[in-house]
């Protein structure tokens, strides 16, 4: 975009949002060039609308000018979903973070997109309710971003992901229209399920300005178990055995040896350092059931190779175990300057063989790959450790990621379970969808956004993408790590 056009655009946007809330100073905009993925690109303008009407008017202006629009909330996307690869206007939501209504009678809350996931559950707690999907970044990530990616989290195994908890949306379209879809306070409306379609569309259909979510009663009791295994294979067998038994826990997470060591160094969660793998299991419900299930799962684990099963005796112990798991990615900073996290899914029965194959890739390439993942639903998060300052490592790691995703797809799985396709996997999507499949999706996209202005360059392969810049371009000065790792970098 040339300087004159940019200046005109900023002026028009300022007329909508006020002078403070639209800017194009390259220094100020540096914050908006990246998310939690390795790639970066600078926007042309950043705008912070204060309400739904302003979002719609911003979109209308961008549409008039033919400028790309990228929605960005907390930018914890691990797939480059918010990186403005084609430049344009980044729309961000710190001013739209209000819980508009909590309606316990109808089991609903109405939210603006910038509401932080965890703060919603905190606001609901006094009434005895919570919002189920709990991505590990829930302390930072927003419900708007969760809607865009159809986010999951450890506790979605039993209760479902974002789309299962959203009943209505207000969406600003590229045309500048504001459209309400879905049932909102009712479960459904007549006509096509546009709510279900828009959830997970990664900002390519419109920008969500209002969200109706379901409230869920807090379970009376939660019990967390830690099953300790000599190796990851026996832990995987433990997972299969629990599923076979007919028990579906609220959460079933696995961490391998390297992850355990990183987590213990960072947060002293209470994971044993000599374990080959641990399974973090949680059951919830009324007391007699929880006690019974915890006992049954404990003995299943012991029968299938667990050397020890520990039960969190206090809420503090339980929180420590979860803090370790949810802080797993940030703890990797203890081990390596950089890591690359994948988000493959395989059918549960393919877990052991897939993990073996990932191990073989690690052996062959010499890169350490550790695994922290949602074992209960087969959602793997292999983390490839590397150093971005060593020439060639970043490129090598991308290749490893690609190989892992191919492996998951070939096992009958998917290339993304909860992070989204974003920028990162727009070519990998071909591992799971044919040209015909993608052509239908593209037709649907054009209904919402005929000119292709909404988050262009995401989800779909091709589209004449300009190359993005890795986070550390050659010659970027290495910053000394103050505490041995980037604890706060990865949210």
């Amino acid at each position: 975009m040339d300087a004159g056009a940019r200046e005109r655009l900023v002026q028009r946007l300022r007329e909508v949002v006020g002078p403070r809330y639209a800017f194009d100073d390259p220094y100020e905009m540096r914050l908006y060039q990246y998310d939690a993925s390795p790639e970066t690109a600078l926007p042309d303008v950043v705008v912070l609308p204060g309400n739904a009407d302003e979002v719609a008017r911003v979109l209308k202006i961008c549409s008039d000018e033919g400028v790309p629009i990228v929605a960005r909330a907390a930018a914890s996307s691990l797939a480059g979903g918010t990186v403005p690869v084609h430049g344009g206007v980044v729309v961000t939501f710190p001013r739209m973070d209000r819980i508009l209504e909590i309606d316990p009678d109808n089991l609903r809350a109405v939210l603006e997109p910038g509401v932080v996931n965890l703060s919603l559950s905190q606001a609901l707690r006094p009434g005895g309710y919570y919002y189920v999907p709990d991505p590990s970044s829930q302390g930072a990530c927003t419900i708007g971003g969760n809607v865009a990616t159809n986010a999951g989290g450890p506790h979605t195994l039993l209760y479902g992901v974002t789309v299962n908890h959203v009943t209505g949306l207000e969406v600003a379209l590229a045309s500048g229209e504001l459209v309400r879809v879905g049932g909102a306070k009712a479960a459904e409306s007549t006509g096509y399920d546009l709510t279900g379609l828009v959830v997970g569309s990664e900002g390519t259909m419109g920008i969500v300005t209002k969200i109706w979510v379901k409230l869920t009663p807090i379970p009376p009791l939660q019990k967390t178990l830690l099953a300790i295994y000599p190796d990851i294979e026996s832990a995987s067998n433990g997972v299969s055995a629990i599923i076979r038994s007919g028990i579906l826990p609220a959460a079933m997470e696995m961490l391998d040896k390297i992850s355990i060591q990183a987590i213990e160094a960072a947060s002293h969660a209470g994971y044993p350092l000599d374990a080959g793998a641990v399974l973090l299991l949680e059951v919830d419900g009324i007391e007699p059931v929880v006690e019974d299930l915890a006992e049954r799962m404990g003995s299943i684990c012991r029968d299938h190779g667990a050397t020890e099963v520990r039960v969190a005796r206090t809420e503090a112990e339980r929180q420590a175990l979860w803090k370790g798991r949810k802080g797993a990615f940030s703890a990797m900073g203890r081990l390596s300057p950089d890591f690359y996290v994948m988000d493959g899914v395989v059918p549960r029965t393919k877990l052991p063989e897939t993990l073996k194959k990932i191990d073989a890739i690690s052996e062959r390439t010499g890169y350490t790959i550790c695994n922290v993942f949602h074992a209960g639903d087969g959602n793997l998060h292999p983390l490839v450790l590397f150093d971005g300052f060593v020439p060639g490592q970043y490129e090598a790691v991308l290749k490893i990621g690609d190989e892992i995703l191919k492996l998951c797809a070939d096992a009958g799985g998917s290339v993304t379970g909860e992070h989204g396709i974003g920028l990162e996997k727009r070519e990998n999507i071909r591992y799971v969808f044919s040209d015909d499949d993608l052509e239908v999706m593209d037709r649907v996209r054009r209904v919402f956004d005929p000119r292709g202005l909404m988050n262009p360059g995401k989800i779909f392969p091709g589209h004449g993408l300009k190359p993005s810049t890795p986070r550390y371009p050659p010659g970027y000065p290495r910053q000394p790590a103050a505490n041995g790792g980037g604890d706060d970098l990865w949210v």
Partner: protein
Amino acid sequence: MGVKARAQPLPGHQISIEQQHGMSVDGLLPTKSMHPSDAEDAARELRLCELARASVVVWGGGTQMQLGSEPRGYDVAFSTERMTRLLEYEPADLTCRVEAGMRVADLQATLEANGQRLPLDPPHPDHATVGGMVAANTNGLNRARHGTVRDWVIGMAVAYPSGKVARAGGKVVKNVAGYDLMKLHTGALGTLGVIVEVNFKVQTRPEADVTLLGHFEDPSAALKAGIDLAHHYLAPAAMILVDRATLWKCGLTADWRWTLAMKLEGYAREIQPTQEAAASIVRGAGGRIEGQALPATFWDNARDWSSSTEDTDVVFSGMSSLTGLQTLLPLAAAAGPLMVQPGAGIFHVRVAPDAAAPALDRLRRAAGDDGQVVVTRAPVSLKKSLDVWGPTPPGFPLMRSLKEALDPHATLNPGRFVGGL
């Protein structure tokens, strides 16, 4: 859109007059039929229909053919009856992939042999097909606890009039790759494409279940008990509030005017405490719990009640917020025999044909913007005068554009869906 100019001869098989009448929809008769053998075959046949500018009505088990407005045209009856195979089922993964023409009961029997189930219970499972259940979004009574079709479909293959088969989703329980087109086709009544294969996640059968009956004189007290239960951590899997006439159709009689029937299920140790919690809520709302022998077919009768085929009545199905349901209850109760699903914000009422129009008008006005009332069954003579779907929903212009994008010549079920789509 008017009468389509026929560009090519009508494809498909000739059918007898008897077959024609067996496949009539709202009094319209097809000229030909098609019975594709698999997904690719279905797409090829649809393409022929599109080229001929034919109007196609898609048939599964035929249990929901009364749903929707009168079709604008009907040339070809397009049946999934030959597509009945179980394509994949790995019990340990709790997933399966089936062809759309498989009967729901057949799928459930396969799952049951492995101690599993799909917790969806659409009416008439011996006839209803998997594809029809998804296309019509028919959910039975289990939805309060277990959700609806959209929560259990993890992947789909759809044949389009373009002649292509396209897939969305996949075979794993957690997947965000690409657009979730499963949601788009669920409840679209086959107006955007013909669902040819469906992938489901399934669950282990509950260890135990028990039914509890609470009796009331006052329907609003009964509804309040039901709604309170829906807010409880131990919500019933299925819960219906019925009047005496409806209860009798389910196979029971009662001295009380209203009955709240609750199916409680879960782990073995869950049942007794759940039963106690439910009973205490019922009693707290002024209801009586009576031990009563339940006919084995009680829940099946209840499930099928709102779409039983022998009646010539009109059926309205309403959906609203839970508080809206409290406002609608007296109006619905006055309209005819009633079944309410308090946890889901749903009611079904059977209305006499001559009273249908004013009752519909009253209910729709009371439902306002936060709910809707759909005429799910009515003789065609009445359909011509009643607005079957009600006012077009918010976002309708997008829906119309989606229809034009995926079925540009309105080949599929023309006119049957919301707003004449």
